[in-house]
């Protein structure tokens, strides 16, 4: 249902983009006749509603259409638009999506444990120099634009100390360790971008609970401060933390556009930017739809995990 609403918004928004594929591909010197011819060939002259339902019914069957660039190419050779040897949108997106998910996975594997650990530590040593230093540094990381962080990391970790390559051009069949090394810089950039929020939420959620009677009880049982926080506060603080983690994981997939472009990482973000440039609408729509689906899926997972983490919901009276 949510996805359906989203699909409408995507379609309207994408179609509101100025210019279309025909104008973009033919450039400034295009004659009106040529533009009309291409539009007719690709079905761009049909009204928006018809095109929307064609797209939607296709999408429901897992067929996200054919990139306009491919369709045009095929058309020139007399093949039908849905010819068998034509690369479809799905074909184009899948490898890119895999790469993006790999990048997101690496970033999450670094940032989530880091953020939760730092959150617990800052809650434990709250209002100390350590707490303040962590807050200042993570906040500055989140406040700087990603491309800036990316270039700073390139400067220090690739140029001055050549530990990681500055270009992350990975391709299929690459060895895992090689792949990991090449992905490291964009992953670190993303980590810096998402850690602050998760850490601060963990800290706030824990501190919020420290005034509750059961925490007082735990302290009066003579437990160590670390145990009080990890064993007694953290389990009850999980629900808000999980929600924030889910939001940030979604950002790792959908917010990678800038980072992928900077590092020339062949992910879905880069594909997205390229397709917008040439107004390749089926690809743009498909990317948007995937981004939306990732958001919804992760939030759903977060809700389910929150329920599992809460014994009140798991064991009703």
């Amino acid at each position: 249902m949510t996805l359906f609403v989203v699909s409408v918004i995507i379609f309207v928004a994408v179609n509101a983009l100025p210019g279309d594929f025909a104008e973009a591909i033919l450039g400034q010197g295009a004659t009106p006749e040529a533009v009309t011819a291409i539009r007719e060939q690709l079905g761009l002259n049909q009204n928006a509603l018809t095109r929307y339902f064609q797209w939607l019914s296709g999408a429901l069957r897992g067929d996200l259409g054919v990139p306009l660039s491919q369709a045009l190419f095929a058309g020139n050779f007399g093949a039908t638009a849905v010819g068998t040897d034509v690369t479809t949108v799905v074909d184009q997106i899948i490898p890119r999506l895999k790469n993006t998910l790999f990048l997101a996975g690496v970033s999450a594997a670094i940032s989530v444990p880091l953020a939760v650990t730092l959150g617990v530590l800052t809650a434990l040593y709250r209002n100390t120099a350590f707490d303040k230093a962590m807050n200042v540094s993570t906040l500055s990381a989140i406040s700087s634009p990603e491309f800036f962080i990316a270039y700073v990391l390139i400067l220090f970790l690739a140029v001055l100390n050549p530990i990681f390559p500055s270009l992350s051009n990975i391709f299929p069949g690459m060895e895992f360790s090689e792949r990991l090394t090449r992905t490291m810089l964009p992953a670190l950039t993303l980590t810096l971008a998402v850690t602050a929020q998760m850490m601060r939420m963990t800290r706030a959620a824990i501190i919020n609970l420290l005034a509750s009677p059961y925490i007082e009880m735990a302290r009066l049982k003579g437990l160590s401060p670390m145990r009080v926080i990890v064993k007694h506060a953290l389990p009850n603080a999980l629900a808000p933390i999980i929600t924030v983690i889910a939001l940030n994981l979604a950002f790792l997939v959908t917010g990678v556009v800038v980072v992928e472009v900077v590092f020339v990482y062949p992910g879905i973000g880069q594909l997205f930017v390229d397709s917008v440039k040439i107004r390749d609408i089926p690809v743009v729509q498909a990317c948007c739809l995937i981004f939306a689906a990732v958001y919804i899926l992760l939030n759903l997972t977060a809700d389910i995990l929150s329920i599992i983490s809460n014994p009140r919901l798991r064991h009703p009276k």
Partner: protein
Amino acid sequence: MSEPLLKIRNLWIEGRSDETWNPIINGVDLDLNKGEVIGLIGESGAGKSTIGLASMGFTRDGVRISQGSVVFDGVDLVTASAADKRALLGKRIAYVAQSAAASFNPAHKLMDQHTEGPVQHSVSSKGESTEDGIELYRRLRLPNPEEIGFRYPHQVSGGQLQRAMTAMAMACRPDLIIFDEPTTALDVTTQIEVLASIRDIVEQFDTAAIYITHDLAVVAQMADKIKVLLKGDEVEEADTRTMLSQPKEEYTKSLWAVRSFERPAKPSVITGSTPVVSVKNVTAAYGTTDVLHDVSFDIHEGRTVAVVGESGSGKSTTARCITGLLPPRLGHIEFDGMQLPLDYRKRDKMQLRQAQMIYQMADTALNPRKTIGETIGRPVEFYLGLKGKEKRAKVDALLDEIELEPSQYRDRLPSELSGGQKQRIGIARALAAEPKFIICDEVTSALDQLVAEGILKLLAKLQDQLGLSYMFITHDLATVRAISDEVVVMKDGKVVEQGEKAEMFQPPHHPYTDLLLSSVPEMDPDWLDDLLKERGVDNIGDAAVDKM
């Protein structure tokens, strides 16, 4: 005589408000020998809990011990390091909190929390401690002792949690336990079970205890000696019997006297007159479960009907049906002989205006961001249509009626008032609509006895002046005795007995009414013993309830 187990000398504690430190406890001394129980009593704000926590070397945030010493078995807890204190806490000194429901961690099973102390303090292994926990649960007469520990706190009732918490405090066999109002949140019938359990176990293990409460009758059952506190100062200390029979100080005497307030009986209702409110055969449900079964009673003009029963007996649900918040499934409500629409959204302004409510928690029932004038002015404008000067005059008149000086209180925020004053504002807000009938839902149960008495007197005065009718929901039988004309006893959503107050407090009773009445603690220190003997020691609490 040997050195006492706990020796507090010249203890001063300060609390911070608005950047300055203000004294909360002013130089209190306390001695407690092994196996002895001391009762700390006083109104809220007297510093009972603060002393209780301080005797563990612990202060809450924003509170500090400024001077004095708390020596437990030779160790001064004020100067001891955090690690030294942790070694004692839970192991040799344990704490039982007021609300067990809030003090058990909702994320862990009871037994895991029970064994945590012994395991962390290396007193015993998890297995041994679990066995011991089951044994303690058995001694505390918890139902299904083998099984109950493996539930989460939300799956266990309040009275059972309170006992489980006492068991948890006992887990390391401490020398001293601090009981901080352990039965205040419980019904009278449950309170008895918990009191008896606590006393047994304290005697069995020869544990010393500090028992904090504002209920004199409770402390009379529990303590060997009593210390009375007022605003951080010690008023007097004496052994329990002396304190009860010959209190020296005026303040102590005034505390003792509170329980004697009782308004004179009113003439009985003229038969045949139309009641102000009539509840007719009401059955109501939450979802598909019926929670009220065929409830009927009348409330006549100028009279107070007390609705009594334990929590979950359907008292507040009945109120929700009358106000239309929960439309009954069967039956109906009559007002002055006219049938009211069941749903409040279908009632007109006049019908809404006639019935007003005063709530238990004055704290949460007042909008913290509105001044008192705005809070009371809102219904004045809504129901009476008064504006500007007229509205202000009406608000002032209402404040006069609840005995608060208008010029002083009109522009204050709720946070600048005491609990009793907030409850008075709640009354003024209800009066603002000029109703004929007010539902008072546990209006005094969150208040100290002296303050509660003031509220009850005010309500009685307003009733005489304005001819109001009250439905007074309470679980406290002392309040019933003080204010009501008629009593309705409820249990499990049914009315088990109803009638004039005078009749209700005379035998013969319905067995449940009898249980309720006999469970109200009395000031006699032998009361609990006698009662237990009468009911048969093995037959208290659950068993007594089951019989019905």
